[in-house]
């Protein structure tokens, strides 16, 4: 096995069509696949990144946005280290649904999970949600905030790298050992990180 020190599970959620799969593809494969069909069920992949001189593995779970394809839900939230909640800055309804997503997160995810709000598609001209609105929402709910463009590759690398760094910092503080497949929930042993409401940039 590779000599990585940390392995974190990152789960992406949010309405259908906001660009979750494109964010993941951009980050893991450097691609922007046009005409991407709706995700059905859950897709997962691994990407190794380096933080400092340490190897960190991110296990990324890309979930279906459409309710009828979201049959597998609760159990993948449970052991997540970070949740990325995505909306489309050019589509008001995807922003309006955020409280519903938060309710689901509250219900199923660990309370210690790192939560990041992402406004995607900043390449688009027809913005409907001003940046400060997203920012305020994130602050109110103790989330990181970042705007991205999977198409133009804006902030995508930064999003995942920042998550990796932050989770590593958390893990170091609480001296978390390497991923242990026998422990059901790693998050339960992390301390609450008070830096949760700052912006990533």
């Amino acid at each position, binding site marked *: 096995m590779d000599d990585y020190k940390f392995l974190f*599970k990152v789960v992406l959620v949010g309405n259908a069509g906001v660009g979750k799969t494109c964010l993941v593809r951009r980050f893991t494969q450097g691609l922007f696949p046009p005409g991407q069909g709706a995700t059905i069920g859950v897709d997962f992949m691994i990407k190794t990144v380096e933080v400092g001189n340490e190897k960190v593995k991110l296990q990324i779970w890309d979930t279906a946005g459409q309710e009828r394809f979201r049959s597998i839900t609760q159990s993948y939230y449970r052991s997540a280290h970070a949740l990325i909640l995505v909306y489309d800055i050019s589509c008001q309804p995807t922003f309006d649904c955020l409280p519903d997503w938060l309710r689901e997160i509250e219900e199923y995810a660990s309370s210690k999970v790192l939560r990041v709000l992402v406004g995607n598609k900043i390449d688009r001209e027809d913005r409907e949600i001003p940046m400060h609105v997203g920012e305020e929402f994130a602050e109110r709910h103790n989330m990181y905030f970042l705007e991205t463009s999977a198409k133009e590759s804006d902030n995508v690398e930064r999003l995942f790298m920042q998550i990796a760094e932050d989770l590593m910092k958390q893990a170091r503080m609480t001296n978390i050992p390497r991923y242990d497949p026998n422990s059901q929930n790693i998050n339960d042993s992390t301390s609450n990180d008070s830096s949760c409401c700052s912006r990533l940039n």
Partner: protein
Amino acid sequence: MLTQMIIRKLFNLRNANKRNNLKLSQRCFSSHLPELTKNRYSVKRGNYAVLTEDHKQFFIDLLGSTRVITNPDECLSYNVDWIKNVRGYSTCILKPKTTEEVSNILAFCNDNRIAVCPQGGNTGLVGGSVPVFDEVVLSTSLMNKIYSINDTSGVLVCQSGCILENIDNALEEHGLMAPLDLGAKGSCHIGGNVSTNAGGLRLLRYGNLHGSVLGLEVVKADGEVIDLLSTLKKDNTGFHLKHLFIGSEGTLGIVTKVALQCPPKPRAVNLAFLGLQSFEHILRTLKRAKQELAEILSSCEMIDASTLDVCTDNLKLKSPLSQYPFYMLIETHGSNNEHDQEKLNKFLEDAIAEEYILDGTTTNEINKMKHIWDLRERITEGYTKDGYVFKYDVSLPIEKFYSIVPAMREKLANEDTVRISGYGHLGDGNIHFQVSAREFSQQLLKKIEPYVYEYTSDLRGSISAEHGIGFRKPKYIHYSKSSGSIKIMKQLKTMFDPYGILNPYKVLP
């Protein structure tokens, strides 16, 4: 509510499969025909009667003219196997509806030394279900009655010509399902399944037909009907004769009725499709799947990159993953979706953490599951588009499961082949291994056989894990069976069929 939804979805999936399989059988005879078997393999015709008009008249008197096919065009599809490997030239196809008719046909053929080739859905892959010369074909296609389904005991009793998928659909109304499932389900007959001991995609979970067949009715070569049609789960009275007819490929008798033990239909079905780097990782994933998914694991299949290409390139199916050297399909059947998904996600998470799995997707959405299963179930069909396919079906010790593919690639490095690849029932240690070429060539055949059988035998594997011996493999049976056991088989054959009229040139050397 959820349960109902899943059941409804499963039903739709099944119908979709049916459509596919129909398409598949229609395509069968669209392109060129294989050479006559007797010429390609230089076989000598047995000392059987050549069919006369009097013989045909007897059959017409017995069955009526519509159930005796003599028109050469109509006979053709009964003479060629669907992967177009072999071709006979029978001029008489019989379609009995009852056991009594089968009995009369066989008694007549036995008295007149007329060779008979029993045929179900003709989906066999080793040339067992088509005539080699001019044998009369006894088709079970009109023996398609389901007699009873008991939803408490789970026992179904039916005629041997019932199509597997029709049985499954009938069982579904009773909350049950057939104990076997295979790609050919839309065409294959249960009698053929029994006669070949067909395995399929979920043998790992539901066992083989020696376990799930509770009883049979068979007709011996001389027309005598043997009633072994027990519907009891437990019955230790005397020799267990039914087993002789399971997997003996119609050489000892013709199966006319079947009693099957059927499991409850699962309320929760989940499927994962995974990309992996090496066969070593596949083994680790298999081990972990067995441990963590345990009683809900219903299927564990592997496909190598080159095999997946026959689906993506030849059939234009889309893979949900990017390219990896190996792929796995893991399915769960259970009664509680929440419980199953919890287990499946934990298993996947751990396997990703250990890096056995590099990429994957999991779902219980019916269309996506079907889409993924197509990548496995339509491989045989996709292969036929390469040209001629040399197909092998061997069991190997699990550690050596895939070793035959690189061994064969090395051996055939200088030959003109399209593809050398493997896929199959990982959980059962049964690999389907094939070499495709633009066309059949004796030279290539000689390079592959008997090497492939020697290789398998050296590892103490089976040279035919589930497809049977049929016409293609009798001379190789000794690689997997001792001379003592072959001798007993021959003695049994003589006892059941002294004139050798049942499915000659097949199974025994």
